[in-house]
């Protein structure tokens, strides 16, 4: 058993709406997988089935060797969860909150180290209820990792972060990866998925439409590139599947430097948006 998560044919309906409509997904131990998709695509439901919050209607679910629907506190010990929305006890300080949640685990991380890791050291004495949205989100992350989870679920963890806080958070995820933590995150930020994930799964209408490393997802590596340059007539652009050849020809033409030369591969966002558009 080397997989942290294995989903086979998972279905979940709410009334007539198939929120999860036959999902197969395997996450290896130590891997980081990002789940992308528009709102209502079934990302959160899929993650909540893995977390044991929701029961599936059909299919097999195995998370760290157990079925989350019947998992016990020994299993919860190994799983960290950062939910999309969840409250704190407003009148507890940041430090008290992290220490309290840490006390629920056998061998928690050091409270102040966790607070420092999420960048809340300056706010350690502040009441949870007085934090800004982004700061509360960091406290969510602190509480999610304080128990040293083997597997960490993050549901849109960086919503409300400023760019600096987001970079800081990415650093934290990289350090968790070095410790061998398996991480499943949902996100709306494509550059976040690209920066963090070994593999990206795109979910649309309850199904996984594509899964793969961000660099090759949806044929990205082979997709046509855009070569742009300029000459006396103004700017030019050429879409091509052979950008290297085009650049070599341009170099010969200009006999040296090509003015304003850029070669752009489609971004993950371009690929993602094409995928979503095809489904609509």
């Amino acid at each position, binding site marked *: 058993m080397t997989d942290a998560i294995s989903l086979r044919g998972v279905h979940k309906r709410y009334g007539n709406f198939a929120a999860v409509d036959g999902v197969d997904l395997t996450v290896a131990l130590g891997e980081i997988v990002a789940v992308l998709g528009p709102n209502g695509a079934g990302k959160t439901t899929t993650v909540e089935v893995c977390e044991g919050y929701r029961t599936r209607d059909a299919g097999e679910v195995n998370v760290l060797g157990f079925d989350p629907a019947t998992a016990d506190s020994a299993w919860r010990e190994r799983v960290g969860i950062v*939910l999309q929305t*969840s*409250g704190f*006890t407003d*009148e507890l300080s940041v430090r008290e909150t992290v220490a309290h949640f840490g006390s*629920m685990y056998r061998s928690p991380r050091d409270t102040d180290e966790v607070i420092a890791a999420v960048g809340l050291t300056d706010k350690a004495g502040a009441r949870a209820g007085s934090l800004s949205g982004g700061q509360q989100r960091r406290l969510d992350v602190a*509480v999610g990792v304080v128990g040293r989870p083997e597997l960490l679920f993050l549901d849109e963890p960086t919503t409300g972060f400023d760019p600096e806080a987001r970079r800081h958070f990415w650093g934290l995820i990289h350090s968790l990866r070095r410790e061998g933590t398996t991480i499943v995150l949902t996100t709306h930020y494509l550059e976040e998925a690209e920066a963090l994930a070994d593999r990206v799964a795109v979910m649309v209408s309850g199904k996984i439409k594509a899964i793969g490393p961000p660099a090759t997802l949806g044929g990205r590596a082979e997709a046509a590139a855009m070569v742009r340059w300029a000459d006396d007539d103004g700017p030019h652009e050429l879409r091509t599947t052979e950008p290297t050849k085009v650049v070599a020809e341009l170099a010969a033409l200009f006999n040296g430097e090509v003015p304003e030369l850029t070669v752009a591969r489609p971004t993950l966002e371009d690929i993602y948006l094409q995928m979503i558009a095809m489904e609509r």
Partner: protein
Amino acid sequence: MQPSAPTSLQLGYGRTVVEMKNLIRNRQYFGFTVLFPVMMLLLFASIFTGTIDGTGVQVSQVYVAGIIGSSLMSTAFVGLAIGIATERDAGLLKRLAGTPMPKAAYFIGKIGMVLIVSVIQTTVMLVLGVSLFGVSLPRSFDAWSTFGWVFLLGVTASTLLGISAGGLIRDAKSAAAVMNLPFVALQFISGVWITVDQLPSWLVKVSQVFPLHWISRGMRSVFLPDSFKVVESGGSWQLGTAAIVLAVWCVAGFFVCVRSFRWTRG
């Protein structure tokens, strides 16, 4: 070697500390919980004076005994239900359910908080009652043992019912209204503010179904002289019935809260 997992009792103690910190640091909520019954006592005891006919008991003494009962139920029943509904709406319950903390620890924390607050409220009432309103503390062991079991059965029944109501309430925004409406009505028909001999007998029969009638009646039996019992329905304290009704509510509350409690909104 792997350290052993924290027990329900250890974490229940931790939860009690968290509940108390949250209560004491929230001035509005703490003020409401502890000062509201005090304010009601001072208002009623100032507005209505004199003695109850044929008993020699001052009305203010009746209020003191009744408010000890009703504030206990207010904390355990109304306060818990609103608190639980609010914590579920905010997602705190969902977060706790995702940790290895044994579920029992959450309830131990709530019960611990209710017990501490009830002891504080009762002490404040008794100090005010003795110093301002001529209440005399009973000297007999019997009276104090009655106080003990009425207090414990009353807190237990109210707590279980409060947890049940917290499970059944759909929306925290409406929780205060949903809980206070029946509770205020109960206070007026259970002899807390108006002695039951002034009420239509059918209304007294209705109130006898509910715990507050028996909690406040039990407290009156402890802190009021025996001459007062002619005012109670049936002309006696009927402590045996009080014990049975409260015990039945404990059992009913236990089964409802086990079935109704939900950790998530969905």
